[in-house]
């Protein structure tokens, strides 16, 4: 009888040990992230999903914005040792005017996360200037890092701007991807 109680106790202890949570990661950015992003005057939030990145185990929070003109922006904030901000912005219809409007919308979303990252000029001015310098057009895909001189931050910054035309033009004609990362290596 005593022996069976002893083994039963051991089993309970073992189960408790297995049920214990993984230790919390030590993260620099956990307390600095705004998880409730506000809606914009020309867009509404259609979804908000919290998750864990399977590769890094960093926390993620993803908001989807639907704009009045039919454009969609998926904003992902991923954070722990670094703060990663990524927008995938889908243009319903591609024109210079809509592209500029998309960049203005991205600008608003960047400001709404209140991180130590500030552009010295509006995003469409910086993109227009750098596209001219690199002789790029909206007819082909491109990807480049925004110049460090265009950014104000007290942290290590990595950032990237990409554009590509989409094959399925019935849904969206083109896609802009904007990324900035703070901290890290």
């Amino acid at each position, binding site marked *: 009888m005593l022996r069976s109680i002893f083994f039963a106790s051991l089993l309970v202890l073992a189960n408790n040990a297995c049920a214990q949570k993984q230790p919390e*990661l030590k993260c620099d950015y956990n307390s600095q992230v705004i998880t409730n992003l506000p809606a914009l005057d020309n867009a509404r939030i259609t979804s908000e999903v919290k998750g864990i990145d399977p*590769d*890094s185990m960093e926390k993620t929070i993803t908001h989807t914005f639907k704009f009045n003109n039919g454009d969609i922006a998926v904003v992902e904030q991923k954070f722990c*040792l670094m703060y990663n901000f990524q927008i995938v912005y889908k243009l319903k219809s591609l024109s210079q005017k809509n592209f500029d409007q998309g960049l203005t919308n991205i600008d608003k979303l960047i400001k709404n996360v209140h991180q130590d990252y500030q552009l010295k000029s509006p995003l469409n001015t910086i993109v227009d200037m750098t596209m001219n310098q690199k002789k790029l057009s909206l007819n082909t895909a491109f*990807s480049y890092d925004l110049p460090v001189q265009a950014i104000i931050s007290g942290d*290590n910054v990595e950032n990237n701007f990409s554009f590509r035309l989409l094959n399925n033009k019935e849904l969206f004609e083109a896609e802009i991807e904007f*990324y900035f990362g703070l*901290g*890290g*290596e």
Partner: protein
Amino acid sequence: MLKNSKNNLASQYRLYGKKGDKVLKVYDMNKSKKDAEIIKLMVQKIGEFTQNGARVSRHCVPVDTYKKLNIIDIGLNSTKAVCKNFNASKFTNSLKSLQKDGYIEKFIDETGKSNSCWHLEIQPNKKYLPDYSKGSILYPVKYINSRTQIC
């Protein structure tokens, strides 16, 4: 990067940004191969970014680029380990002073973060370095322990 990835790949994904993650993905997809082959593939990926004027890390640059801008991290713990009576905040102030004087291009105090280091970017020979006078680059050691020595 390869050594650290073998040790703890998830922590490397946390440490690098978007481009670094793509290099780590190359490691992840090829980790059963020999080291030399993995390194070749990772370097190839880094080269793709470099060709487009992008960097995987501020520390990961070709030698010619590094000669124009030295980018170093000074570890807080390793500095403490060799320095008796070391005062981190005084050292931080001296680095700030050097940045203000134009000896350091960019300074980031990451001692309060997990990196636990001072990140410095220095353009070599940008400014003349007078020795041991009031105008010397060594003058900011006054912030450290009031003597002309660091430790």
